[in-house]
């Protein structure tokens, strides 16, 4: 048998994993491999199968078919308490009848033969130090704030030096500012301990900011697996483009296409051209498709001040302007395109003078948009 250190360079591998609940396919023929020491996220709306995937790694669920491997060894049929993984639960699941130190040392105390009590105390102190909560060992878990409980849960998992650390929406219960802090801290912690982290979240910002790789899930399937840059710059379809960052979508049918891009005719009769996504498939003429344009790609100008070189430009009416500090968002109604969201940086000269009700020209360069398949 290979020891966890040797063998595969992947810490978690799914091969054609299927898991049903009653007649719902929660995980539907999913395969992926997570590199040792990486920070991976599963991103998707509730019910997409991301939490079930995590529970399959933890051992709380067993696959109906396919295989789950941890550090190169199949763990199918292995119960949770024999797997070298630890989880940070959504609501932390700290034991209320124990103090913080007993919570953190729980995993070490289950080892057989039982570890030396002084050694456990030492490691607990070190783990609390790691999550920057020294001197709180004697407190009860429920006396702590949400952020502190979060750190205790992290310490309780990390003290066992698991092969994989699982995080089930760990930041969902925290307020926005604390969430940002914990994101940075989690990322630093992951680099410090070098353990593979697997995070489940529905918050795309969270996934993008922390992960080395992301799996976007929908209806039990992984729609796209890649780095945050790949997902943002080269989504495989509309679903991914919609879930990662924000996009305007102009749907229609493919009028013509070549190897590099397609022209799509909208229901209002406009024809818009855009290149294919680097990682998306090619489109067939007549197929339903969409042009995705990020809000920051679109420009706004006063009529008559339109620069040369725009591939697409349409007259539009400004409906609303939302000030967001370093940038502003503009909701406009463009002729033939309907409502469009535009994002301009704070110091853009064009954006300064615009007020709701103004007539403007909106436009973008075709190579900055993407032609994508629907769904």
């Amino acid at each position: 048998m290979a020891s966890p250190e040797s063998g595969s360079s992947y810490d978690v591998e799914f091969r054609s994993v299927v898991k049903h609940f009653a007649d719902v396919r929660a995980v539907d023929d999913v395969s992926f491999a997570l590199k040792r020491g990486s920070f991976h996220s599963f991103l998707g709306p509730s019910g997409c199968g991301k939490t079930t995937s995590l529970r399959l790694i933890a051992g709380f669920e067993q696959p109906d078919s396919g295989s789950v491997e941890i550090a190169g060894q199949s763990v199918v049929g292995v119960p949770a308490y024999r797997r070298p993984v630890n989880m940070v639960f959504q609501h932390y699941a700290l034991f209320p009848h124990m103090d913080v130190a007993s919570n953190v040392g729980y995993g070490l105390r289950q080892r057989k033969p039982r570890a030396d009590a002084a050694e456990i105390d030492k490691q607990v102190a070190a783990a609390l130090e790691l999550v920057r909560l020294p001197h709180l060992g004697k407190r009860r878990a429920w006396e702590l704030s949400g952020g502190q409980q979060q750190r205790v849960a992290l310490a309780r998992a990390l003290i066992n030096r698991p092969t994989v650390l699982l995080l089930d929406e760990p930041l969902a219960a925290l307020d926005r500012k604390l969430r940002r802090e914990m994101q940075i801290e989690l990322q630093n912690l992951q680099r410090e301990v070098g353990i593979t982290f697997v995070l489940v979240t529905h918050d795309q910002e969270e996934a993008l900011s922390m992960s080395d790789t992301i799996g976007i899930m929908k209806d039990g399937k992984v729609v796209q697996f890649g780095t945050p840059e790949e997902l943002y710059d080269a989504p495989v379809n509309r679903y991914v483009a919609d879930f990662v960052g924000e996009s305007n979508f102009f749907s229609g049918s493919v009028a013509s296409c070549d190897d590099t891009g397609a022209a799509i005719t909208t229901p209002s009769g406009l024809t818009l051209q855009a290149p294919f996504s680097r990682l998306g498939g090619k489109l067939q003429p007549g197929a339903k498709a969409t042009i995705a344009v990020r809000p920051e790609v679109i420009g706004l100008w006063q009529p008559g001040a339109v620069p040369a070189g725009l591939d697409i430009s349409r007259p539009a009416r400004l409906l609303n302007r939302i000030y967001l500090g370093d940038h502003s968002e503009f909701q406009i109604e463009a002729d033939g395109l309907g409502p469009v969201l535009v994002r301009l940086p704070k110091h853009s000269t064009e954006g300064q003078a615009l007020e709701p009700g103004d007539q403007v020209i909106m436009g973008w360069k075709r190579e900055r948009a993407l032609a994508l398949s629907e769904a």
Partner: protein
Amino acid sequence: MLRAYSAFIYLFLYAPIALIVVFSFNSGNNASDFQDFGVDWYFKAANNSLMLAALENSIIVAATASVLATIMGTMAAIALQNVRGPLRVIFDGLTYIAIMVPGIVIGIATLIALVTTFDAANTILAGIWPGDAPPKLSLGYGSIIAAHTLFAMALVIIIVRARIAGMDRSLIEASADLYADPLATFRQVTLPQLMPGIVAGFLLSFTFSFDDFVIAFFVAGSKNTLPIYVFSSIRRGVTPEINAIGTAVMLFSLTALITAQILLRRGNKPTR
């Protein structure tokens, strides 16, 4: 108006009890004529050998019945957790019905069931016994303990079930995630989480058994429990001694009930 009304309600509720407590400290001979303050009757009661025998019976019955009810009720409550669907509804219904059946019905039913069983068993025993004097099953400790255990078990099931329902399931998963096998999880997480409910169930079972008159009266046979002793001595007239016994029993029961309440409340707080 309403205020006076509710004051009267509580007056009617507690005045008789207060009277018993007050008259238990009467040093005179008459139960309804307060003469001097004194604890003479408490001493008298404490030296009454009949009363002491009944008290001993009561303690033996209550202790045995409540321990049995707590163990079996807790086990049943945990096992019921894994029963799903219509069967669970039926079990739940049966548990609640067991508590609502009037004591007199339980008393008669248990009496008839026991006597019938004993008769049949004694006949068989007499037939197969090798010696001359076959053991004879009859009413006594065993029958009171059995009847009380059955009723108190339903109490424990309901209390522990409520505690299980309020428990965070992810605690059990967290324990498994931290390498504790199912037995270790039960010992280190499930049982401590259920403990306030279990102890409260034990205290309620104990006070129920200790205070019960109706069921015990039917199935006691020749054994006297304290409530049966009090009932039979009242027929010879109410003495301040009865007041003293009543006050002591009440103090004991109240302490147990309040402790149970505190445990049930405090037990529920920490699990957010």
